[in-house]
């Protein structure tokens, strides 16, 4: 089979809005909506202040992580980085949470990575089936998916704890990966995307060419779903990385923590050296911020896109 289709162009909300409001109308409705209007100085002042408020705690994590136990709590508080950053980072890297922040980072990467791969691929398959395939029971099953959107994490922690204890999986990373491999949100998100983005004619054409279902998924659905897969992947990674309740129960007292569990250990321990704690917080945040800076534009677009369709 030859390449069936180039990746469908995906329109962002911005592009849609611009298409709906041609330039001519923009000018004619100067007194109209914010969209048509240039921002005034006051808007910039407010936005700059809010942006500062958003970024300052992150900056201050860096400042605090570069001081020492004494300087971090001095008055007035330090506002520029000091000289202890690498000393503090190296300390938590080797000592936090039993085996150090380095192990915790590796664990979180493994957990969030596996959860992301699982969620994206299983959501893609199920979302495709619900969006484009006809089969008995489809409506009822989709209803069940939607109903499970609201089941809170708290409901599963006690049985999961017992289950994992009986299976001997306590303190093992698979205890964190397995329960999160699928999400109802992911299936729902993929279905919503594919209903619109995947033309049924294309599927029929591929079928006519004699492609079986798996080939159709691989050569038709995946190329078209790629942008949605990227967005779902990033959202899932962030969520899994930040998961807290279940990891702190499953990994309690473990020498094999995730980043969140290791940070919780730093924060609730007897040590009150805030410069060390902030060094841990910095290490725990940097990977996500890095992902965010690299893919920020797509994440921003993805959140807005998912919200409109969801």
């Amino acid at each position, binding site marked *: 089979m030859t390449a069936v289709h180039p990746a469908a162009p995906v329109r962002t909300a*911005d592009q*849609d*809005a611009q298409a709906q*409001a041609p330039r001519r109308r923009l000018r004619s409705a100067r007194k*109209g*909506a*914010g*969209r*048509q209007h240039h*921002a005034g100085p006051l*808007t*910039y002042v407010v*936005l700059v202040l809010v942006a500062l408020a958003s*970024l300052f*705690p992150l900056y*201050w994590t860096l400042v*605090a992580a570069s001081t020492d136990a004494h300087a*971090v*709590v*001095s008055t007035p508080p330090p506002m520029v980085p000091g000289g202890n950053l690498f000393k503090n980072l190296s300390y938590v890297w080797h000592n936090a949470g039993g085996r150090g922040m380095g192990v915790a980072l590796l664990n979180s990467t493994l957990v969030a990575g596996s959860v992301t791969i699982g969620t994206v691929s*299983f959501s893609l*398959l*199920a979302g495709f*089936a619900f969006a484009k395939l*006809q089969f008995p029971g489809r409506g009822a099953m989709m209803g069940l*998916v939607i109903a*499970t959107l*609201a089941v*809170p*994490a*708290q*409901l*599963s922690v*006690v*049985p*999961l*704890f*017992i289950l994992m204890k009986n299976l001997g999986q306590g303190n093992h990373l698979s205890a964190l990966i397995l*329960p999160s491999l*699928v999400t*109802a949100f992911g299936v729902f998100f993929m279905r919503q995307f594919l209903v619109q983005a995947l033309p049924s004619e294309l599927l029929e054409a591929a079928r006519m060419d004699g492609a*079986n*279902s798996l080939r159709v998924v691989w050569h038709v659905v995946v190329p078209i779903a790629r942008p949605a897969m990227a967005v779902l992947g990033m959202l899932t990674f*962030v969520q899994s990385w*930040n998961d*807290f309740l279940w990891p*702190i*129960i499953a990994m309690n007292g473990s020498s094999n923590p995730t980043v969140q569990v290791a*940070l919780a250990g*730093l*924060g*609730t321990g*007897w040590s009150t050296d805030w410069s060390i704690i*902030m060094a841990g917080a910095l290490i*725990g945040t940097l990977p*996500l911020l890095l992902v*965010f800076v690299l893919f920020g534009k797509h994440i921003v677009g993805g959140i*807005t896109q998912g*919200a409109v369709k*969801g």
Partner: protein
Amino acid sequence: MYRWDTKGSPYAFVSPFFLVFAAFGLFPLLYTGWLSLHQVSLYNVDQAKWVGLKNYTDLFTGPPSHFFWNALGNTFTLGILSTVPQLMIAIGLAHLLNYKLRASSFFRTALLAPYATSVAAATLVFALIFSPESGMANWFLGLFGVDPVAWEAGEWTSQLAISLIVTWRWTGYNALIFLAAMQAVPGDLYEAAALDGASRWKQFLHVTVPALRPTILFTVVVSTIGATQLFGEPFLFGGQSGHQGGTAHQYETLGVFMYDQGFRNSMLGRASAIAWTMFALLLLIGLVNALIARRLRKSQ
């Protein structure tokens, strides 16, 4: 072969979801309900003793009921304190972001940066900022001649500080959701309103907000569900006393209460009863939401 493929593959495609959900979603849901009728020790999970509804009656009227109602109340006040300002600020910010802006992608990314920060890291930074003697918050207030506040010790001050963490992390996220909805509002509506002489503030109130109703409802529900399950922020804000929601349980939420009862006090049956009570609460929120959504649809 072909027939088998077209008939069977849809089920093969949806089965991973349903298998994992059955094992790690549905089974725990029912098992938690069953456990909530038992006395179960953390250290001997296989010896569950049937106690009927005792875990529930204990929660509502028995010895732990004082802490249960306290946690329920705190969940409610923390939910209001974090959800209401967060969404109101978010809608205002979305309105500003909707102007033609220079550096608009910088502002969007900056506002969303807190979302990419972990619960633990964010809470620890704010715990430092709000620390009693030397924290930055008290230093800042001191510049205006305000006496130091014991943020963590007070009931309102601690809840205010915790809701600020939640607000900080989620306002930008919600602002972007509102922004997307705003950009989908047809420009004609504004044109017509402008011709009728509506000021920009009136246009915001009478065009933007009504058009955003479904999105507002969506964010209200999502934030409310999030607030009902609040755990990491109160747990970590208190340091040593975080597992009980502060030295005097002053910001203990239902989530923290469940953790403390189950995994500190070894009463897994009671923890299960708390989990099911939270589930009932969420169902109630869902029901109210559905009713409101239906009335909104009818009124349009």
